[in-house]
């Protein structure tokens, strides 16, 4: 039986004082940056040209040696990164398997910010009503949608029949202010001491809440990150993303969780202690990666963050290259904005060593790794075309493909995922990661040049 007819409407004020446009482009800032980097490059070239005749090296041999040294360093970093993540992830899974934490079942408020999600909101709420948990409420925050999301959401308001109890569903209608402001509005009216923030297009697995909330029995845990999986599989581009989520994101998150320093709580599923969010100053919209920014602030507050691999959120992945680039462009610029926002913590490890370490890892992944990967590929193209070393590119590809195959096998086995995804590892690095890294590098350049951007809404398929 549904009690949705007995509804009340009221108005309240949302504090949105942190709502600022993410990037303000100022011409003089770009000019200063270009000038400084230009002068530094000129000084470097002058030093090389001045010192070169005094050494035994010729110009051609200098280029040759420096390329070899750069490649060796690249391979070394690649292997250290891979095996480091694999070993830590293995330790984490071993610890997780033998650890037993059950019996902590507090009241939880689930917040769903929606913007033009009429196609998906019904399915998201339906998945929440199947949760294997008794004490929770659902708050839908309509962030000024321009489609019929409001009408669809209003039909869901009421006491709906859940798996173990009747679940209260409320709706907040507000003017468009971005995801961060929608989440803050939901947190403001939530009744629970624990809040689960998710996306309007995501669907949770029945045990996701029960398994995530138990970690809060430890008072040091401020947030729990869930496991995001691709919902719309079956296409070449979405299958590659499914592999990327398992191999690139979840494995790294497992490794970070071993030291309780997960650096990004994903938007599709993140469970927070309300006290940790409030002490961190709620979601801020001065970056385009509000989840990464809040995670860094929670870590800076001395809280620990855990990863729960069995708390699964299925989300729609972009189904074409344009949408994928749009998503990655926003992620990259958002992460760089977050790193810049917390650069004090990054440069001074004595304030909070954990946060500083996390920021350096993010810095490396966002700014160092993509140009290195592009440069390595370019080197082999030039070596093949200009010097005829065609076979080098084959061995390069074979080495990387073998490494990715082993990692994909481990990840698919660890997550009990579809075995067919392993086959995509053969082209994963040479095609998919190369495209993503080129997008990341371009976005980084645009971010440093201060090119204006806005939050891009991905197209929903609603399958």
């Amino acid at each position, binding site marked *: 039986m549904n*009690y949705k007819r007995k509804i009340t409407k009221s108005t309240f004020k949302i*504090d*949105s004082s942190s709502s600022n446009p993410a990037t303000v482009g100022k011409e003089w800032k770009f000019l200063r940056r270009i000038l400084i980097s230009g002068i530094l490059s000129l000084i470097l070239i002058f030093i090389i040209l001045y010192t070169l005749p005094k050494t035994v090296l010729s110009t051609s041999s200098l280029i040759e040696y420096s390329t070899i040294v750069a490649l060796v360093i690249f391979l070394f970093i690649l292997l250290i990164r891979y095996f480091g993540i694999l070993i830590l992830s293995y330790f984490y899974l071993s610890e997780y398997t033998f650890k037993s934490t059950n019996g902590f079942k507090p009241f939880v408020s689930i917040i769903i910010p929606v913007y033009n999600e009429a196609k998906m909101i019904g399915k998201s709420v339906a998945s929440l009503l199947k949760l294997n948990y008794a004490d929770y409420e659902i708050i839908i925050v309509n962030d000024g949608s321009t489609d019929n999301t409001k009408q669809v959401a209003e039909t869901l308001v*009421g006491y709906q029949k859940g798996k173990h109890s*009747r679940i209260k569903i409320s709706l907040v209608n507000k003017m468009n202010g971005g995801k961060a402001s929608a989440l803050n509005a939901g947190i403001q009216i939530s009744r629970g001491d624990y809040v689960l923030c998710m996306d309007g297009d995501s669907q949770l697995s029945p045990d996701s809440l029960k398994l995530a909330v138990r970690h809060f029995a430890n008072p040091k845990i401020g947030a729990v990150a869930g496991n995001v999986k691709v919902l719309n599989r079956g296409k070449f581009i979405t299958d590659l993303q499914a592999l990327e989520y398992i191999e690139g994101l979840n494995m790294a998150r497992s490794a970070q969780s071993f030291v309780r320093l997960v650096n990004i709580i994903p938007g599709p599923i993140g469970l927070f202690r309300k006290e940790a969010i409030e002490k961190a100053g709620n979601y801020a919209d001065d970056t385009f990666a509000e989840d990464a920014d809040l995670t860094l602030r929670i870590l800076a507050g001395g809280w620990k963050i855990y990863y729960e691999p069995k708390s699964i959120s299925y989300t729609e992945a972009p189904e074409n290259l344009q949408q994928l680039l749009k998503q990655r462009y926003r992620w990259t610029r958002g992460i760089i904005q977050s790193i810049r926002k917390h650069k004090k913590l990054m440069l001074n490890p004595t304030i909070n060593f954990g946060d500083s370490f996390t920021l350096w890892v993010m810095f490396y992944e966002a700014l160092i790794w993509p140009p290195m990967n592009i440069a390595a590929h370019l080197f082999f193209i030039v070596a*093949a075309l200009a010097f005829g070393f065609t076979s080098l590119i*084959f061995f390069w590809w074979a080495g990387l493909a073998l490494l990715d195959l082993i990692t994909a096998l481990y990840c698919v086995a660890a997550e009990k995922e579809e075995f067919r995804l392993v086959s995509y590892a053969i082209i994963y690095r040479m095609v998919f990661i*190369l495209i993503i890294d080129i997008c990341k590098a371009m976005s980084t350049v645009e971010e440093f040049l201060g090119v204006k951007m806005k939050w891009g809404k991905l197209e929903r398929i609603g399958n």
Partner: protein
Amino acid sequence: MELIPILSTIILVATISTFILAVGAYILYKIRERKYKEAPAPAPEMMNAELVEPKELPREKIYVEDIVKPVTHVVKPEVRYRPVKQTDTFYSPQYVARKEREPVKKTRVEHRIVPEVPDSRFLKYTEEGYVTPEEDRDNGEIKWR
């Protein structure tokens, strides 16, 4: 022709194509984004929001019996074992031989003639036995069995 040069050529072509595809797609994305670029409206410091929520339900209506409660423990059916009575009889060869010699007691079987009772709710007892009211309607009042 050897396999490695063929594979190398394929990978080389694939890598160059990926580079061109990635850069091309990125440029295309930027062109499309520029087309739809709008100036963002400045957000006010405080904004009004409308809250639509159901009226509070009493706790007993939230946790109702028609919804399956979580199974916290498995209830096993109670099995009662009836102790088997042990007789003090000791079955020795002498006992068995004595039992065999004893005459078998004849049980008296009583044969009673049970009058046939018609299948009806109201019956009247008469000298002829039970009769239905229809059969004995003229012989006085109906007697309840």
